[in-house]
């Protein structure tokens, strides 16, 4: 399931709900991304999405990841709007029969979200606001998965 939300969320409650009633799955991995204060230089993180398009694009990648890693289920919850430091921005959960698939699927989905998912991120701070674009490391992180296909 792919969902965008303007409201704060509780990663623990999401994990409990995601695990509930799974007697055959065996493995659940999660990642929670938290807004950073950057030592006071960021007072608010602002995330913009393109409603409809953003969910559809993430859905395509999540569907591909389910097939590639053999995931039983994927949950991606992403905040939009203004987020204070310390609050969760993104929660990704993957369920699979074994741990490796769950870990790798979660890792892959986060690499995708950082540099390819339709979000635009702005950091507001005492010195004004700036748009954040993917760093070279983010592109390199995503490229790891292409290499794995070719080897």
């Amino acid at each position, binding site marked *: 399931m792919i969902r965008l939300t303007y409201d704060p969320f509780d990663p623990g409650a999401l994990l409990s709900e995601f695990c509930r009633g799974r007697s055959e799955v065996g493995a659940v991995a999660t990642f929670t991304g938290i807004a950073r204060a950057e030592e006071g230089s960021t007072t608010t993180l602002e995330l913009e999405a*393109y409603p409809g*398009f953003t969910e559809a694009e993430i859905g395509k990648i999540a569907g591909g990841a389910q097939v590639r890693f053999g995931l039983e289920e994927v949950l991606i919850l992403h905040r939009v709007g203004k987020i204070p430091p310390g609050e969760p921005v993104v929660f990704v959960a993957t369920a699979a029969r074994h741990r490796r698939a769950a870990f790798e699927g979660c890792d892959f989905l*986060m690499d995708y979200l950082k540099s390819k*998912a339709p979000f*635009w991120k702005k950091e507001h701070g005492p010195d004004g606001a700036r*748009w954040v*674009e*993917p760093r070279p490391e*983010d592109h390199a992180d995503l490229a790891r998965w292409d290499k794995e296909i070719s080897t």
Partner: protein
Amino acid sequence: MARVLLFGRLSDLAGWREREIDSPFLSALRSRLAAEDIDLGAALEGPGVQVALDQVIVRGDAPLSARTEVAFLPPMSGG
């Protein structure tokens, strides 16, 4: 009238987020926006800026209908 949407730094640069603009082709729309605002015109051609027509990424030129939603998407970053 095509519905034109700007995201991220493009809307800050232009000072608007959404406008109705009558244009038969994407190329003509780009020229018109550039003629009105040279900085925006350059930014729309900048590296990593993609265009979606009715929420589908396109490359090159394309005809626009009266109801086409044209979205200019600068480099994306989530998480």
